[in-house]
């Protein structure tokens, strides 16, 4: 059991973490104090063209090595410690922020690292894998992931999230069951512009992970949720699927549903997604909330064994595990959306596609 909350401004109006904190705090019982986290989009407007590497290091040596690693491979335009209020949590890793661009031009890179995005992903994976005790929390542009071991309030105060202003917020309250509660294993999980929070257990993790490894992703954070972030990145950014298609690939309709479809094109498209992305399919109980470049979407498993609700109000879309949490974020909510099992809710920024779609 975990708690999920999301706040999304379709007009990219920035605000601090106050409302999302209220939303996630209401669901305190959905966690056990062993993990919480936030993702905030739009928080670094002055550095919005640079990759913001949030690095977590277990000690100063790991931090130094990670710093060296980054400076060798990237052009660092600015770096600083991430401000924390360590009165809240005494034992904590060190957090450092680097704004970077790839340090070598595309023509000198390996083919699989040719685009800047691929280069950043590849180097982040390499860092996670090779430098003991150092991990990338997030590496997208104009966003950051703040997470750790504690309650949602602890983590909020620890990272001083009152001081950041973002237009998309994800929050997570963790009750770890499969894997130990540790700082790297807290949610959200990020890769470039995609971040996810997840409630549930991915029974298909064994194959999802092997599938991702074939595409160069390396799962180092000891938790199944990590794989979901990489799958979204693979399907949407690298394979060019739409969010709708990616959602279908991750939580596909049953074969018996596909068999009933009469439109041959629709049927063929679904069979293609099922055949191609069988190993990406997520099984087991899950509710996932993901922020992506163009908006935010939620997805549940085909039997909806984990809750997800949403509401639209004044160009904002709110997501939460529990309805009460939606009201906590916005009192004036009129209609609650409860998606059917396996049905995604996709909210997009206004300039792209208008309002949220069901």
């Amino acid at each position: 059991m975990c708690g999920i909350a999301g706040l999304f401004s379709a007009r990219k109006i920035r605000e601090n973490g106050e409302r999302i904190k209220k939303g996630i705090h209401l669901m305190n019982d959905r966690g056990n104090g062993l993990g919480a986290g936030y993702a905030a989009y739009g928080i670094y407007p002055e550095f919005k063209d640079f990759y913001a590497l949030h690095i977590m290091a277990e000690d100063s040596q790991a931090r130094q090595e990670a710093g060296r690693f980054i400076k060798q491979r990237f052009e660092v335009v600015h770096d600083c410690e991430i401000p924390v209020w360590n009165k809240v949590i005494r034992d904590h890793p060190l957090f450092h922020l680097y704004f970077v661009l790839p340090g070598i031009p595309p023509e000198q890179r390996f083919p699989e690292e040719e685009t800047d995005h691929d280069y950043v992903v590849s180097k982040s994976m390499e860092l996670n894998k090779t430098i003991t005790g150092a991990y990338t929390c997030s590496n997208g542009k104009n966003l950051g992931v703040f997470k750790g071991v504690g309650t949602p309030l602890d983590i909020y105060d620890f990272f001083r999230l009152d001081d950041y202003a973002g237009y998309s917020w994800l929050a997570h309250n963790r009750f770890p069951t499969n894997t130990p509660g540790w700082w790297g294993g807290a949610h959200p999980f990020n890769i470039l512009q995609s971040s996810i929070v997840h409630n549930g257990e991915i029974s298909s993790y064994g194959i999802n992970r092997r599938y991702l490894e074939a595409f160069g992703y390396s799962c180092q954070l000891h938790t199944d949720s990590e794989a979901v972030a990489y799958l979204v990145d693979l399907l949407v950014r690298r394979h060019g699927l739409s969010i709708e298609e990616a959602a279908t690939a991750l939580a596909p309709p049953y074969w018996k549903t596909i068999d009933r479809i009469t439109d041959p094109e629709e049927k063929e498209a679904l069979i293609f997604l099922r055949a191609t992305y069988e190993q990406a399919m997520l099984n087991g109980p899950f509710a996932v909330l993901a922020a992506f470049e163009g908006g935010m979407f939620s997805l549940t498993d085909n039997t909806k064994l984990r809750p997800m609700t949403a509401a639209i109000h004044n160009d904002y879309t709110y997501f939460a595990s529990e309805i009460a949490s939606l009201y906590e974020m916005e009192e004036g909510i009129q209609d609650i959306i409860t998606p059917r099992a396996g049905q995604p809710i996709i909210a997009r920024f206004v300039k792209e596609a208008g309002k949220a779609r069901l």
Partner: protein
Amino acid sequence: MKQRIEQPGHQSLFQPVFDLERCDGCGECALQCTFNEIRIEPHGDRKIPAANRKSCGACHRCEATCPRQAIYIEEKPLALRRHEVWKSADIMRIHRQSASGAVNLTGFGSESDLPGYWDRLIFNACQVTNPAIDPQREPMETVTLLGRKAAARTGYEKRGNRQELIKLNLPVVFAPMSYGSISLNLQKALARVAAEKGLLWYSGEGGLHEDLFPYAGHSILQVASGRFGITPQYFHKARAYQIKIGQGAKPGIGGHLPGEKVLPGISETRMIPVGSDAISPAPQHDIYSIEDLRLLIYAIKEASGYKPVCVKIAAVHNAPAIASGIVRAGADMIYIDGYRGGSGATPSIVRDNVGIPTELALAAVDQRLRDEGIRNEASIIAAGGFRSSADIMKAIALGADSVAIGSAALIACGCHGCQRCHSGKCPWGITTNDPEISQRLDPDWAYERLGNLIEGWHHEIKEFMGLNGIYDIGSFRGNRLILRGVGISEKELSILGVKHAGE
């Protein structure tokens, strides 16, 4: 009636025992025994059966057909002095071989006591945090697609050859068993069940008898080294084609259907004269390396209108590299037959000493194809002595797209594993085409039994999925985290790609 030759040596380790109080001397047992083990003799004013004590192989045909349940089979004591090196089987083998001067033949799969891994792998199950799914109440799907799949949409469109995938209702196919090695009645039953349950059946290399034409759409027809029964129309009938390179029960050697078994129907289907030996050479004589295989794969694709082509190999040491070459040569499926795989006739010395376990070959091949980024280009069909739905699901979790069952299908139709398939006298009418004996296998009965087996295993397969919280077999496939090893070494675990129990 052909002369029935008594089999000396280790074939007489058993004997029928008759309960003369129950027996009414009807003599059915003597008629049923095709190995001349039972004679009927006068006894006072009645007739009673008696064992010849020469050729009982424990096929249990007499026991199963005795109308008065007056027979059981017992093992004859073999009081050889205990020796840890010279085991009784070694001594009996030499006795038998020195009587004939020939290669000892046998049938069925290997009986050696080398470790099998299926029994050392166990499944996980859901507790608390992820709910188990009840297959009786919730949807549970086992649909499996075989063939070359796209890696992503971009490559898929560019390729231009959208090959149709083969849809199975569950990840099981019937292993190749030719008309000749098994009876036509049994092939018919296999074909009917495959068609009805949405599976595939393999023809083996004996060609396609015209009685089976209606079921050819669910068949994978074989092109083996003997090239028996291959006609232009052969390439228009099947769902897919298979090039047979090797067989788990006899890697590296060819096949031999003795002339006595080449009866008129077989002669017609294989297109060889009645009574002539049907020899399948050890190699395919037009395949001496991978580039030749590529030529044959594409020749078959051209001839068949680009139907999927499967390549069957025996599991051997270098299976991963061979598999990689096969996939790159254009095969859409690769069939790996492990050393427990069955055979209608194979030298026992080869059967028990050549090849490696399916488990290890399968795990290594799956991983190798993934490492090379070509796993999507071919499906893997694993074969070699699958005994239960648990074995099947362990293979699926290790990475097989589907498994093939041969021996289990024969057992469903009455086989008791007496290992005399090569004799042509199978008392159950399974591995014989003797016009009289093969009639013993009622195709409708066999069809029902096979259908029941598939039905039962399908239920169990869904149970394994449900208790792991998985509603679609696609998430079970290659999901090695579901498995744990018990009592096997680090090295074995690393090849299998599974953790030890407790980890």
